[in-house]
């Protein structure tokens, strides 16, 4: 199981280590540093690195490498999932997960890590339970603790930990009972030169924020559940009920959680909400190139596209760009060759465009590779797959909760080849 954990920052300093079995010397990280050096970018460091006596499994998030050391045959996904869970927990505890934040709260971090793993076996990873064991630091609590001498370590066994619903504690009380669900869809697509779709798929999630008193039992039904043929549920969802009736039935955890994630595959037809018209040309022998892109709405069901960001990694041969946008602002970094254009909203009457010239390295032949355009956007009040919630019911409690459903579509990895 998991032996040790090292946190390493971008500069290559180990700023925290935690051992769950015997102490593993930090020199083991040298192998990691070697791999880090070989990789051109931090993202490219391989997640599994063998060393003579150990294996290093790492994840890279928030500019921090979380490196787990294992010694025996352990499912690597288990370790990587756990590392991601650690990061999520830190984020949950401290708002953001950064080196400064972790250093500021090192004792809490240490206590939390100790609760999460025992002898390398996961012990408590549900944030509800962890928060009962180790209370997250708040300014108020710190002040109170200093005055009264009380601690931020819970001295009672968390109630949920061993019940049939380990994700929920008992005795939850709210004055305003509310349950909000966000249906968020990310669309991943590769569009080719001519504008036709090579592959497109939708990654959807339903994130919930449930603040309900007692032990509510919820059911959520959809207008078109057939869309959901590839789903992953939060453990609270009763799988049998879904299999037979296509209804989500569950006792929710308290607070924020991800109820389900789903995947609408490339085989179904996926609506593409935007198009990009582009004309990027280099000519042999000339030191100037032309650059022109226009972004417009395609299948948006009448909704507005907002938060549009266009970015593109230009070829090395491009020295500078002189461009004029019809709206928004643009930046070209001549060192990293990254062009980004913050477009904002798309007005269908007046399509945003970015035009101009590129100055190329003199004498060199024209670049071999064409830049790929990366697109970011958001559409409120629309789930691009067409998924719609039918109704939400609550059983087991008497009060009437506030309910709300929100839809949103975002670009995931949306790429246009030129």
């Amino acid at each position, binding site marked *: *199981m998991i032996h040790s954990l090292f946190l390493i920052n971008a500069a290559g300093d*180990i700023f*925290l280590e*935690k*051992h769950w*079995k*015997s102490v593993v010397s930090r020199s083991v990280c040298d192998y990691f540093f070697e791999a880090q050096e070989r990789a051109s970018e931090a993202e490219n460091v391989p*997640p599994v690195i063998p060393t003579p006596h150990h294996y290093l*499994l790492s994840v890279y998030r928030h500019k921090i490498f979380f490196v787990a050391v294992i*010694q025996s*045959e352990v499912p690597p*996904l*288990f370790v*990587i*999932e756990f590392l991601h869970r650690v990061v999520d927990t830190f984020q949950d505890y401290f708002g953001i997960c950064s080196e*400064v934040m972790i*250093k*500021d709260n*090192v*004792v*809490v971090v*240490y*206590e939390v890590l100790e609760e999460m793993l*025992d*002898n390398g*076996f*996961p012990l408590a*990873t*549900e944030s509800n339970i962890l928060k009962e064991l180790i209370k997250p630091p708040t300014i108020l609590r710190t*002040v109170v603790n*200093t005055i009264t*001498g009380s*601690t*931020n*370590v819970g001295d*009672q*066994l968390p109630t949920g930990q*061993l019940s*049939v619903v*380990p994700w929920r504690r008992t005795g939850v009380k709210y004055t305003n009972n509310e349950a909000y669900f966000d249906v968020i869809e990310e669309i991943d697509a*590769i569009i*080719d030169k001519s504008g036709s779709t*090579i*592959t497109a798929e939708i990654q959807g999630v339903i994130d919930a924020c449930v603040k309900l008193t007692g032990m509510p039992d919820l059911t959520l039904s959809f207008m078109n559940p057939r869309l959901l043929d*590839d789903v*992953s*549920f939060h*453990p609270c969802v009763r*799988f*049998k009920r879904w299999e037979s009736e296509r209804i989500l039935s569950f006792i929710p955890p308290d607070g924020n959680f*991800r109820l389900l*994630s789903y*995947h609408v595959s*490339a085989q179904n037809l996926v609506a593409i909400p935007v198009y990009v018209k582009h004309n990027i040309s280099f000519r042999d022998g000339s030191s100037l190139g032309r650059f022109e892109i226009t972004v417009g709405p395609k299948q948006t069901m009448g909704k507005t596209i907002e938060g549009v960001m266009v970015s593109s*990694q230009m070829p090395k041969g491009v020295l500078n760009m002189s461009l004029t946008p019809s709206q928004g602002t643009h930046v070209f970094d001549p060192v990293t060759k990254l062009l980004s254009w913050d477009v904002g909203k798309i007005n269908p009457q007046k399509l945003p465009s970015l035009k101009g010239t590129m100055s190329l390295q003199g004498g060199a032949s024209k670049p*071999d*590779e*064409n830049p*790929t355009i990366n697109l970011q956007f958001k559409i409120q009040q629309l789930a691009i797959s067409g998924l719609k919630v039918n109704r939400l019911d609550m059983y087991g409690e008497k009060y009437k909760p506030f309910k709300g459903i929100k839809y949103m579509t975002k670009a995931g990895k949306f790429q246009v*080849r030129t």
Partner: protein
Amino acid sequence: MTDSKYFTTTKKGEIFELKAELNSDKKEKKKEAVKKVIASMTVGKDVSALFPDVVNCMQTDNLELKKLVYLYLMNYAKSQPDMAIMAVNTFVKDCEDPNPLIRALAVRTMGCIRVDKITEYLCEPLRKCLKDEDPYVRKTAAVCVAKLHDINAQLVEDQGFLDTLKDLISDSNPMVVANAVAALSEIAESHPSSNLLDLNPQSINKLLTALNECTEWGQIFILDCLANYMPKDDREAQSICERVTPRLSHANSAVVLSAVKVLMKFMEMLSKDLDYYGTLLKKLAPPLVTLLSAEPELQYVALRNINLIVQKRPEILKHEMKVFFVKYNDPIYVKLEKLDIMIRLASQANIAQVLAELKEYATEVDVDFVRKAVRAIGRCAIKVEQSAERCVSTLLDLIQTKVNYVVQEAIVVIKDIFRKYPNKYESVIATLCENLDSLDEPEARAAMIWIVGEYAERIDNADELLESFLEGFHDESTQVQLQLLTAIVKLFLKKPTETQELVQQVLSLATQDSDNPDLRDRGYIYWRLLSTDPVAAKEVVLAEKPLISEETDLIEPTLLDELICYIGTLASVYHKPPSAFVEGSRGVVHKNLPPRTGSSESAESPDAAPSGVQAPEPPAVIPTQGDLLGDLLNLDLGPPVSGPAMAASSVQMGAVDLLGGGLDSLVGRGSMGGGGGSFAPAPSAAAPASLGAPMGSGLGDLFDLTGGVGALSGSYVAPKTVWLPAMKAKGLEISGTFSRQVGSISMDLVLTNKALQVMSDFAIQFNRNSFGLAPAAPLQVHAPLAPNQSVEISLPLNTVGSVMKMDPLNNLQVAVKNNIDVFYFSTLYPLHILFVEDGKMERQMFLATWKDIPNENEAQFQIKDCSLSADAVSSKLQGSNIFTIAKRNVEGQDMLYQSLKLTNGIWVLAELRIQPSNPSFTLSLKCRAPEVAPYVFQAYETVLKN
């Protein structure tokens, strides 16, 4: 008020300051001090000097302080074992605490203190905690057993904790069950032989129930444990699969992959006709696709596993090609894996899309990725024949880009395409030649040289091209040198008139100026070949090469099956069995897929590779190509041990031809396959040498048992038996026997064509054998053999071939070639075919020799159930060249003294005792080479009983 303040004190007196604070009376100050100590510890500072002071803080009812001290203890107890004893009392007391949280904390921490002396005190509290009323304490205690086992395994066994742990598998609380399973699995890993996780249908049922209720991590442990179970039939397998399938929808990818492992393994037991089988296949695809939308690290592990799954069951993901398309900002390790899977999934249906993508990738920035993409195009061409033309034109387009590494990579793959589709795309050679100068990588240069040599007759200036390479011969890498040597020899054989000088130049460069033994040896081989017999050289060097196979980097099926059992583990990431890399895996348990059982068994073997990717293994022996090559070297270069053999073998064109096939593919592989091993092994290379023996002896039995009609003139001839069954030789059936008539040995063969096509171009060759048996003439099959036709041939043999001791002694390994393939088999020959006509020894000589041979060389045998008289025996044996020298009658018994001589000049002396009343004869044999005795005895028996 953050913890960063704990880092600020870096003054010299820090430790002293902390010491003072730790011993402060004020609780708050103490706690702050311990926090500072912990903070220093997390960044790797050594604060072990404070051990006694920190331990003093342990006696407290403040839980946070207690936890902090425990954290410290776990880190440093090992370095201060004597001090750690001080903490024991507190632990023991805490294990009795009314608060389960504190009981659990105590037992958990105690287990983490890896000090032998403390473990003794741990046993009693642990025993109590394992039976604690609170499940939280029990589940913590279960893990503690694993910790303790790690420190002192003997103690755990002696104290009976393992049994208690096994009992916990039946605990009412699913979390306790999961932890017990996890602990047992970990212990079992270090003791592969112990049968700790004794799974039976009852315990499986309990695990399946717990599976639904425990935490995600517990589910992983339980699923991994389930995967080791072997269901008793297909129905049990199906019912387990049904209960595991819901796990595929879990949000935790590790749970999903562990579930996939269980399903992939148990699916093996289900019949393919079952509806459920199809349903299961369909259910497996979506979760695998979903794994690819997770974080890149998870994707990577998932892709490595999908790579295995796609090889085992390509049907699962055959429609999901698009999810493996590469996004330009995927991390490189994800890109490379996706590319690999794309090629595996490529088929005629999707090849157009795949090629378009690959072409796109070939213009990306990342060099490694671009190279792999170009290589992938070549692999597509080899895999999907219909696409070959399009692939070649895509590659030509890429060559036009003149991007150096793209061109080089393209040339390497085009060489492979030539090997797969010879004489089809040679029109592109001109384009390739244009880029000759830009090649600077050895692999690309070697590939180009191979192409020039192979197609020398179509390239007008081939000699100039090769000559240009020759200028810097000594600066080239070995790979290029070897290839250049072969290419120039090829060129010479094709255009001998203009290139004599060139070939001499390269041969002298290779043999005289080089210090590389491989190069020198190959140079000498060519030289000798060319100088002794240019015709033979042509046969050898220009022999037709076997086509390379479709998929070149498939995992070998038995390894694949083993790896399928390790889905989701490190083994699946490395594509190696754990025994190959996991440290401390004492003793290795090889997992394997369960065989299919149950009613509806199909004829197909469960281990069969998907859709015939593996060529059927050749039936028999010829040990290795190395040996064949050794033979050749002996014949041509070695000191002439057997003078006549050399002449004989170079006359035998058929034989040399056979060797040539083997040799050339060997040579080809040695030189071209350096990067990536893209060539298929020649069929013979895969034959395990060990197969020969059991098969041979089986045939021997047949010989012994099948008494039939034998010709009595001359020596005894056994009836023909099948040596090479048709199913092992692509329709060619060979049966035969050996005979000796008037001083000449012959091998009587019947070749039967049971295939649908005409067979021709037969040739035969023997491997070295104990008595130097070799064909005295080529195999003469005058007309091509039509389907369902047989031909009888008598092949004359001599005994001047080269000699190698075989086991059994009379084992003969034979290679037969026809226009279809080369086949190998082995057979046993009866020794009496080797008994020569002048085997009668002088009487005096006999007596002297009999005395001279030491008694330990004497061997006695019983010949049972033989009712012949002494005279009949004598005359019968004489027919097979066993000569009676004297006959005596002693006390009613007939004693026959006999001698015989083997072709290699070994004399065997025999004394045969015949009692008139007793059908059993006693045979005593004396010989200077006692190992022949049993075979002589066999010959006696064969002759006498027929």
